[in-house]
């Protein structure tokens, strides 16, 4: 029987190698290529303006960070309430280069990919260090260890004059092969950079989960004692999960520093950590596409609440800021409702749609 390469009605793998492929059918490949081309091409046809492009950049950075959080919390099952601090580590790595070498040193403006990778590695180092208690502890204790890392990070940034005591540290404009990236191209340029990073890291995660190291994470999440008995080292695996999450966060932080062209303390607070967690949960923990849905949903909600409170604010007495009240309220409500009614997140809807269309129109 000739196999249908476009639509598969079931799994016909005859070897592991077939199962390990990235795209199972031609349809998958073409859908992916279509979306990739769409994502790369749309800025050429629509000019959103700097303000909206900035929002999109922000969203993509959140996606990078949430991919890391999803690795540690979703796949390895370790709760991290300090993810924004890891992002901050990445951003402040760039900032400390700027402080020591000057804002427009060649390293920062010309070799920025290198700086981004270095920030990721520094983030990974801190992640591994914070994960060290994982050798002896689990669950809540680890969550509180990350929480304390967050608090210590905030204090250190606010206290040290080297970090300008939390005030903005400027980062210079970068150069590309076409020359210096100017004010008008800035956000569009970084959109492409972040898109490339997201695609690379997305494939990285997808392939990681097919290897021994990725499966190790999931085994430790499901039952670390059993994983121990199977010959894995749960402690090391957890530390390595934290290091990976730290790497993603560090990269996100460096991108954040470059896009904002400055590093300030207020982007890395406990509140941000919680909202990264919320994004991961709303998107769907332990799924790769959840890392894309979650940030989109939460950022979209944020924007909607902002416009809503602007509209409603006209009918309210002056001086009352509805956004400060409505933002945390809707944010909390969304988290709680998702956990109560759809704990597997938006990724689950995607899964349902996919499994519906897979057998359509020949269902049972």
């Amino acid at each position, binding site marked *: 029987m000739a196999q249908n390469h476009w639509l598969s009605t079931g799994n016909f793998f005859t070897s592991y190698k077939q199962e390990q492929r990235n795209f199972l059918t031609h349809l998958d490949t073409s859908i992916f290529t279509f979306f990739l081309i769409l994502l790369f091409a749309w800025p050429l046809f629509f000019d959103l303006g700097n303000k909206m492009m900035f929002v999109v950049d922000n969203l993509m950075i959140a996606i990078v960070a949430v991919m890391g959080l999803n690795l540690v919390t979703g796949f390895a099952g370790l709760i991290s309430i300090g993810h924004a601090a890891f992002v901050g580590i990445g951003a402040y790595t760039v900032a400390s280069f700027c402080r020591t070498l000057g804002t427009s040193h060649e390293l920062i403006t010309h070799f920025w990919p290198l700086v981004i990778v270095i920030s990721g590695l520094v983030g990974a180092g801190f992640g591994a260090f914070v994960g060290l208690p994982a050798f002896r502890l689990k669950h*809540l204790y680890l*969550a509180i260890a990350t929480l304390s890392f967050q*608090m210590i990070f905030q204090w250190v940034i606010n206290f040290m004059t080297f970090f300008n005591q939390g005030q903005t540290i400027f980062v210079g404009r970068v150069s590309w092969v076409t020359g210096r990236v100017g004010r008008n191209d800035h956000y569009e340029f970084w959109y492409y950079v972040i898109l490339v990073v997201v695609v690379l890291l997305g494939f990285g995660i997808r392939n990681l989960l097919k290897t021994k190291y990725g499966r190790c994470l999931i085994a430790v999440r499901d039952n670390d004692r059993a994983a121990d008995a199977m010959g894995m080292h749960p402690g090391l695996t957890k530390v390595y999960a934290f290091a990976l999450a730290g790497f993603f966060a560090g990269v996100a932080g460096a991108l954040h520093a470059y896009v904002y062209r400055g590093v300030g303390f207020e982007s890395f607070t*406990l509140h941000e950590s919680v909202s990264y967690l919320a994004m991961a949960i709303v998107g769907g923990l332990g799924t790769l596409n959840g890392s894309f849905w979650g940030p989109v949903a939460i950022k979209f909600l944020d924007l909607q609440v902002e416009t809503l409170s602007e509209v409603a604010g006209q009918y309210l007495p002056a001086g009352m800021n509805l956004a400060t*009240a409505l933002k945390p309220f809707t*944010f909390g*409500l969304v*988290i*709680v409702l998702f956990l109560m009614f759809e704990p597997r997140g938006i990724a689950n809807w995607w899964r349902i749609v996919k499994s519906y269309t897979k057998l359509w129109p020949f269902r049972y």
Partner: protein
Amino acid sequence: MVYFCQIMVSGIVVGSIYALAALGLVLIYKSSRVANFAHGQIIAAGAFITYFLTVDLGLPIFFSFLASMVITFFLAMSVERIFLRRLIGEPIISVIMVTIGLSSIIDGLIYLTPFGTENYSFPAFLPTTPLTVYGVSISWTQLLGVIITFILIGAFSWFFKKSTVGISMRAVSDDQFGSMSVGISVPRVFGLAWATAGLSAAAAGCIIGNITGLNFDTLHAFGIVVFPVVILGGLDSILGAVVAGIIMGLIQQFASGYLDGNWGLSGTGEVAPYIILVIILFFKPHGLFGVHEIERV
């Protein structure tokens, strides 16, 4: 020496408040294994309810103190009933995230009221001149706070040692299936644990509010800073919460009293509990009085 004693006294004052605030957290963790990240918001809510009853409705302050404890009792109970009851048996991350979500919801609700942004203080009902013994001074509000704290902690320990409900709560924390088989309603105990935690949180909120003034940021920050306290004491020990609360208060006050201003340091009092926390997690993760759980596959 006077300086030392002064710091000691303020450390005990702060520490006893920590103990009271940590008590609620331990109660919930002990019975239902839930770490409540909304505790600070409940503390703030209790304090604001007391202020509302005293100032806006003109009730006597001690009466409104008791009334706000009763209100938060039922408030926390309904929070458990509505949000947490469905999540029994869900993975720990869901439960933790629900409490974080709850804290965000209560944040939003408080920001809707004027309490979210402005500072208030309770009407003074005690002499304002501090009590001074050998040069060490303690204000009457602080003294009253410490006294009420110790009365409440005494009442709670009596409740857990002697009363039937308290004993059934301890039974549930020890073995849920065992206590079910002797006729204890486990969900009811969970509700009660939240309710008593809410009650102690309201008391803590009023005492803090009376000493430092009512500011939402300071009040809900207590919900985070009690985590180092409960970890130091051991997450499931009430005695641990009290001892660790006082130790943490002393550490914090000594840190800010002796380290701030030297070597260019500042704000060490805020970060000291977390540094202690990291050290504890590395060397004695189950705290001073906590129980090391034995796990089997």
